[in-house]
């Protein structure tokens, strides 16, 4: 029995590392794209830079990130070859790096320049400002709107990761009806959707026509408070700050997964 329990705890810890690594690489890191669209410091950092990098976890996910023309793009397409490839030997190692610890991934391809690494670290620090914003920084309405946009995107991308890699969420995912769930902050966005088709979950940026279920947030503050776990969603639905129309069970099951994304990223 004791052995069984130890094994269960170990499995849970391993799963956690795996899920967090997928979130970090495929839901959080791609937010660099939106970071450089908005943040002046980030734009300054990548000015004149032309560079691509692939992060890969041994036996796990991989992401290709390209920096050029003042933009950042990311893709999971494994056929593209990057200037530099970095390999993490484990999920844990990847997570430690994303948590800001000094870890040395193995450059498995190309040359790894210290100056690039430094800039990348600086970009990550800037990203953190948006994904874990301080109360002070949120006083700026523009910044706050950007935080909400990036958080919404992290959530939409994160749900897809959990539906595939987290045992609880993938179990719940089976109950999510097929369709497209749209989340929109009023009056003018941001918006993001989660598409569920043939058991596959996929984020979509922006609005779609005729979503199966629409969840709207009265304003940026409502969305932020909900995303940061400060708002009682049921109460917000009742008093109209959050509205849901259409295929409610879809949003309902997705919300459980969304809450779990939040729990992992806390």
């Amino acid at each position, binding site marked *: 029995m004791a052995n069984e329990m130890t094994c269960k705890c170990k499995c849970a810890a391993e799963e956690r590392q795996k899920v967090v690594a997928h979130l970090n690489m495929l839901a959080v890191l791609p937010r660099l794209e939106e970071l450089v669209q908005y943040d002046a410091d980030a734009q300054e950092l990548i000015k004149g830079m032309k560079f691509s990098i692939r992060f890969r976890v041994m036996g796990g996910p991989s992401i290709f990130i390209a920096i050029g023309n003042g933009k950042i793009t990311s893709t999971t397409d494994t056929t593209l070859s990057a200037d530099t490839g970095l390999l993490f030997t484990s999920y844990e190692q990847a997570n430690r790096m994303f948590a800001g610890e000094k870890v040395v991934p193995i450059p498995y391809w190309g040359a790894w320049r210290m100056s690039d690494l430094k800039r990348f670290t600086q970009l990550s620090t800037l990203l953190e400002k948006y994904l874990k914003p301080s109360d002070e920084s949120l006083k700026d309405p523009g910044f706050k709107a950007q935080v909400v946009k990036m958080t919404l995107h992290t959530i939409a991308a994160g749900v897809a990761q959990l539906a595939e890699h987290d045992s609880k969420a993938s*179990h719940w995912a089976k109950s999510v009806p097929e369709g497209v769930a749209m989340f929109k902050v009023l009056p003018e966005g941001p918006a993001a959707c989660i598409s569920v088709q043939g058991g596959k979950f996929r984020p979509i940026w922006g609005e779609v026509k005729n979503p199966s*279920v629409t969840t709207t947030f009265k304003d940026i503050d409502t969305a932020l408070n909900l995303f940061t776990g400060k708002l009682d969603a049921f*109460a917000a639905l*009742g008093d*109209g700050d959050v509205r849901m*129309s*259409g*295929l*409610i069970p879809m949003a309902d099951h997705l919300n459980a997964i969304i809450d779990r994304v939040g729990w992992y990223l806390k």
Partner: protein
Amino acid sequence: MSEYKFNRSLELFKEAARYIPGAIPGHMTPAITVPGSFPYFAEKAEGCRYWDVDGNEYIDFMCGYGPIVLGHRHPKVDEAVRAQQAKGSCFNHPTELQVKAAKLLVETVKIADWAIFAKNGSDVTTYALQVAREFTQRDCVIACRGGYHGGHAWCTPGHGGLTPEDKMHIHLVNWNDFDEFKAAVEKYKGQIAAFISSPYHHPTFSDQYMPENDWWNKVRKLCDEEGILIIVDDVRAGWRLNIAGSDQHFGFDADMICFSKAIANGYPLSALVGVEKLKLASTRVFFTGSFWASANELAACIATIEEMKAIDASGKMWKVGTQFQEGLRKLGAQHGLKVSVTGPAPIPYMKFANEGDFRRMQLFSAEASKRGVFLHPHHNWFVSAAHTEADIDQALARCDEAFAVVKKTFGD
């Protein structure tokens, strides 16, 4: 008639949110109605009508989500409760009423050789599973996908606070899919204690499904061959279809039946009844609760059974339910809308056949609500013996207006 406003409901809701998680937790949450177009708090009720805290009056087609079977504040039931209340309700012992009520249940429900009382539907669905496991000395249970048996860990449709083990022995099959049922029985041969199911399939966010292709007879036969008990969860349908048990309505005999909702016309009570062979096994399963012997509810139960029999309550509900179902079909067709009216007449439900996302239904129910007809957009409805032909006519006239809004908004 001017459309209803819900200002006081909203005001109270905001206050509730300060003190109560979710403000209105559970199935009464406005989150699954159409918030802003539905009442949140009730004030008073009578017969088949109730009034919300804004003073709006509704023809009630939810009946407290089922319990109100004779009508709100039924004089005979309430009088029986008042008479008991004058003597007290919560003692160190049960009262004679517990014996009387159990006897009456055994006389009323065809398969019942014994009856035992609790408070909520979930109390008895969980207990019935345990009794089945104790009797058969097996662990597994088959249930239907989308079926609801309460809020306990083995059956809750929710996600929070569960462990993977909670539902480990519950195996799901599709309603009416006998091949799948048979395959599950084969797969877990010798391990299945019971099949628990509502008498017909009444999932939320869905049409309602009657048994088809001799479903119950085939299930009964296979269960007999394999030593599997049949637990009918009659918490929702109980006594509206047939006071002898919904299994009788569908022409088979259950081994145990779970009742709650309607058995005391709104007073909190549930009961499990079973066949003789399970009586001793049931004594070996720990079963109790602080309020399970309270006398008021048992007085209500006795009065409810007597009155239901006296006025043929079930017959009345079939009649007005049929009038309502037929009226909705006719109105839908007149407006050129594709309505799907399903469920047995006393527990009707309607949605629009040409949509999967309920948007027409949400609009329709919101418009009906604002005109004083309380119809849930996503959950089956209930009629009571207090609904009259005139009430149904009035409800249909208002639904006519709601249909017109749907037609205008959606076109088809």
